[in-house]
């Protein structure tokens, strides 16, 4: 009887602890089936003579957004072990001393980490081209565009969008001729690559597409100075929005700039007295108002170099690859070297990038309708040594920006 009981118990233990399917597919649980090694090598410009050691290279999974960070060795190479998937590798760092600091940014093409892409050594290899850029004297300090629920009618109110530009340098800068633009496409999308890519690749073009309207600060060249630490406000609708929604921002402040043109945007709110007007030098869209995305805009500052606005429009107008037959979707292509500062916002970390790494190597994740604004972080070290507020500018909004629970002008302009 004891013998039979032992056999029955032994059989029960085997049954409870065994797992037929798991045993059949045992190899699927091993690390080699779940992940692979990837070797990423930074490709510096020929002019670069600095050290290649110590840069943090980030491998980001295209579908889950998970990131793995490894430090480069003396050859500028980092080895990763990551789950199978599609990745982009990026690097963000600085080289040189204050006053002549170069910003090194780079993002690779999509790296396929899967069985078919394995090299003979069993390790996947990828190259990461590195671009060198420099920080801008004038930066986008804060942006508010997502709007907030209007308690009077339970709808999201978004017309009080604004942007604050700031002189981050130690010298005067002039706003004359400075251009503001939003990028195409209007919203971030979940396709694997932007439509504005170089032929046959997933790499973004060397120029940024301006959508809808081209805006510029007027002036002869020295009419509108901005001192170090000073800022200007650009509004879509320069009115007191608190009269429409108690949760909105009062933008009826003399001295603010309005993205308003009587001919191009006649249906936009008439700016209040004392507001200065931006100049619209080009328009493609058929709409009579100018709006920015409430969920995921990407905007930048640039200066036209070596040509007039007329020549710029004539030579740099491009059809939209998605709707090449419709003139209303044409875009002005701005050379990346003209760009002073840019910020890309996304509503989903899995969406594709629209800005080149030299302009913005990261993105800010925002949610619409929560009354939040995005604001540049203060660079404590630089501020201390300069004796004034200096904001972070590494051309990577992922690290340069933070989310404010409430737009700064809402409290500042209340009861004005």
């Amino acid at each position: 009887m004891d013998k039979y009981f032992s056999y029955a118990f032994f059989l029960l233990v085997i049954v409870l602890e065994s797992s037929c399917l798991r045993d059949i597919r045992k190899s699927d649980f091993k690390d080699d089936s779940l992940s692979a090694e990837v070797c990423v090598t930074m490709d510096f410009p020929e002019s670069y003579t600095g050290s290649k050691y110590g840069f943090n290279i980030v491998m980001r999974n295209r579908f889950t957004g998970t990131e793995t960070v490894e430090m480069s060795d003396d050859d500028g190479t980092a080895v990763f072990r990551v789950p199978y998937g599609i990745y982009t590798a990026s690097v963000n760092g600085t080289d040189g001393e204050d006053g002549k600091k170069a910003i090194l940014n780079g993002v690779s093409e999509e790296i396929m980490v899967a069985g078919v892409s394995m090299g003979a050594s069993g390790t996947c290899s990828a190259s990461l081209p590195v671009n060198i850029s420099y920080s801008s004297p004038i930066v986008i300090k804060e942006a508010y565009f997502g709007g907030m629920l209007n308690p009077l009618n339970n709808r999201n109110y978004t017309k009080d969008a604004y942007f604050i530009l700031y002189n981050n340098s130690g010298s005067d800068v002039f706003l004359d001729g400075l251009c503001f633009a939003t990028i195409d496409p209007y919203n971030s999308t979940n396709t694997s690559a932007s439509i504005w890519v170089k032929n046959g690749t997933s790499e973004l073009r060397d120029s940024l597409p301006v959508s809808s309207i081209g805006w510029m600060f007027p002036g002869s060249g020295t009419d509108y100075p901005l001192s170090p630490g000073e800022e200007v406000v650009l509004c879509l609708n320069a009115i007191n929005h608190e009269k429409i929604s108690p949760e909105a921002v009062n933008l009826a402040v003399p001295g603010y700039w309005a993205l308003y043109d009587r001919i191009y945007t006649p249906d936009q709110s008439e700016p209040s007295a004392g507001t200065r007007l931006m100049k619209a030098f080009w328009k493609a869209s058929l709409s009579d108002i100018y709006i920015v995305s409430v969920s995921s805009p990407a905007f930048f500052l640039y200066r036209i170099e070596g040509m007039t606005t007329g020549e710029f429009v004539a030579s740099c107008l491009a059809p939209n690859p998605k709707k090449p037959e419709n003139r209303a979707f044409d875009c002005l292509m701005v050379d990346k070297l003209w760009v002073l500062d840019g910020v890309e916002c996304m509503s989903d970390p899995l969406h594709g990038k629209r800005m080149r790494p030299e302009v913005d190597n990261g993105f800010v994740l925002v949610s619409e309708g929560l009354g939040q604004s995005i604001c540049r972080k203060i660079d404590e070290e630089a501020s201390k040594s300069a004796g004034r507020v200096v904001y972070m500018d590494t051309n990577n909004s992922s690290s340069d920006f933070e989310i404010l629970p409430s737009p700064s002008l809402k409290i500042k302009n209340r009861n004005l």
Partner: protein
Amino acid sequence: MKTGHISIVLLAFAVFSSVRLSADGTYGDGYPFFVERTADFCPWLLSGNVSGNVFTFADSLNMSFAEIFRKDVSGGFKRYYEPERYGTSGFRTASAKTIGNLFVRGRFDYGYTGAKGHAWCGTVVPEEIICFMADSVPGKTAGESYNTSVGLSLALSDVMAAGVSFDYDVGTLSKFNDGRNSNTRSALGVSPSLAFRYGKFVFGGALTYERVSEKVSYKYIGDPAGKGLYYFEGLFYYTFSPASSSFLSERWYYNEAFGGSLQCSASSGDVDLYGEISLKYRMENDYQDNLKSWHYNEVLGLDWSYTGNVLFRRDRFRHVLKMDFENLERMSYNVLNVYEPVPGENNQYRYREYGRTLRYASRFLTAGMSYVFYADADLSGHGKWRTVTGYSFALSDEEFMFYPVSSYRKYFFHRFAFRADRTFYPYKGGVSDIGAGAVYRCGYGSFSSSDGFLSSGSFRQNTGLLESEHMYNDSENISVLVRISHMHDLKPHGKLSLYGTLEAGAVFSQSLHMSRRIFSIAAGFYF
């Protein structure tokens, strides 16, 4: 029990051959009150082989029934996918008949369910799909179900019978506030079978094919600010997609299963033996749209089970020993897709697959045994007293893998049940049945342990759901149920009878200070 009522008992059993009762003997799925009695004595009627009924189902038992029912459930002690309260109204009809050498059974169920406080309802059958999408906002839902089952078997000779059974189920589910989902599920099952009789032995074998498909779409009509969908990938790991005014997300789930079963029974004087073993291999393919162009996930499954029944007859007592064992395994693979241009085509794109990676594996095992005792049994074996004492054990083992992170969750459950039913004959042509039962359940296990931690990206584990499930699983609770039934003959010898059933029960969890209440009522005709 009178002969006419015996036939009702066996009829109900024959009709509900696809109903599997738990081995610990607790009440079935709200079907007519005689069903579980019949299952004790005629195990072939509950098997996956309809052919065996030709040799075991007496033609004197031909009968049909139809009933309407209403069931209400409410209370806070629930799984995360269950509504706070719901009510189901419906209609059931079934029939079993022997015509010469032919045995026929059929069943049709219809149910309409309205629920409140229902969230995470991304599939018609909860937890059927591992990588499902759902939203977290509770709301009102409504669903319908249509279930049809038909079985035919023919005695080809004195020793051989052949048969086939078909099952077809359709279910729908919709939520009426953002995120609004609309689900439609259909399931088809076919099972051809053979049975052989050799003296006191009956052997049988059946093949099984099942196909289940479900379509789900989510959209938002109102202000989408702050809302969105959760896309789960196992063990509550998910990515989140915020909603927008033009948001529409659709998925199709396709599930196929191939399998078979073997049965054997022996009858010798005072002892009847029965055993059945079945095996099913499942393949599921999930698509992100309704055009099968984006194949995002694949699931493999292996289900095997064993059922055993031993019946002892001695004087006016009947002893039934029942055993049940089931092992369900699933492995879910994430399919790597790239949205890329089609070579040689202008402005054409496609999703191309680049392999699969194991993401989630699970195993659910249950084993149970119960002892059914009939006292004061008449010659046909159905007694005035029936008691059931049962015990079952369950193991739930899950693992989620996303290199370098592995997460585990394991639970053990013990379930002890006891119930007693008493049958009365208050007057000629009437029979009443009063029963009461209690189940004690306790569970223990790990909340979720991980090797490694995902510190970036949109891949997160929903710790809120993990916690609420842990509180539910890692607790003790007691269920009590009382049932009162009465049947009245409108025509003699059970040719036409009217019956009604009232059930009331509750589950209490002292540690969580929560409960859940069940009330159901049914009325019908046997004819």
